[in-house]
């Protein structure tokens, strides 16, 4: 079975329409396998994706493009208890996760 998700690229278009990611420190909550992450992370200063699903995070880590190795990190965490200091991020993205 072949599934094509958003072949017209609407999500990427709207992400960049709503927010300027340039050099921003971004937290993505519910990143899963990183499908959304790859649509904006290149322009950020740094991106951290969190998800409670370790299997999904393994896929995201394996799929991470080589030019994003130093810019995008993934962590297993719950949104109710974020393992970060206060005022760490410029942008938070709730990726189909609220």
């Amino acid at each position, binding site marked *: 079975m072949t599934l094509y*998700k958003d072949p017209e690229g609407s999500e990427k278009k*709207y*992400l960049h329409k709503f*927010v300027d990611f340039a050099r921003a420190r971004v937290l993505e909550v519910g990143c899963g396998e990183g499908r959304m992450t790859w649509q904006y992370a290149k322009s950020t200063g740094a991106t951290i994706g969190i998800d409670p699903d370790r299997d999904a995070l393994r896929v995201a880590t394996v799929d991470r493009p080589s030019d994003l190795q130093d810019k995008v990190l993934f962590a297993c965490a719950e949104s109710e208890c974020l393992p970060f200091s206060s005022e760490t991020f*410029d942008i938070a993205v*709730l990726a189909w*996760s*609220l």
Partner: protein
Amino acid sequence: MVHALEEIRRVLVPEGILLDIRPLADRWPVEVASAGAVRETGRLDDLAEQVNADAASNEAMQAAEARGWFKREQAEFFPFFYSWDTPGDMEEFIAEDWSDFIGLGEAARQATRSAWAVGEADSRVRVRVKILITKWRVTAADRNSYRRNTTAPG
């Protein structure tokens, strides 16, 4: 959910941005699409779990706004297509991945199969998912007020 929003606010800088992107149940259309034409063949059925989940998410954001944590700046809907080569592929996906919150009725299933069978060679089957994207801004409200109000005296 509300506590998660409080946590997100905590880790955002003052004037930081929260971008909430999520699908909303809205009896998503099923379509048969080729390069030359798009034909709606039916609608998926929203099951109670998805409707309730949407309501809970909306209520959580309203609560966060009412507490002065975030201010809504911008919101829009846009379509996000899930597309398959055949109706059978779509049915398989819905059964495996969406059956807890979305239903495919027999009438829509049959109409989609029929339209695809007589369609162009490049015809695909797709579901038009309704996505809501909302931009929220961290407000200047006292960041510690909620914790003060909910922390037991020691």
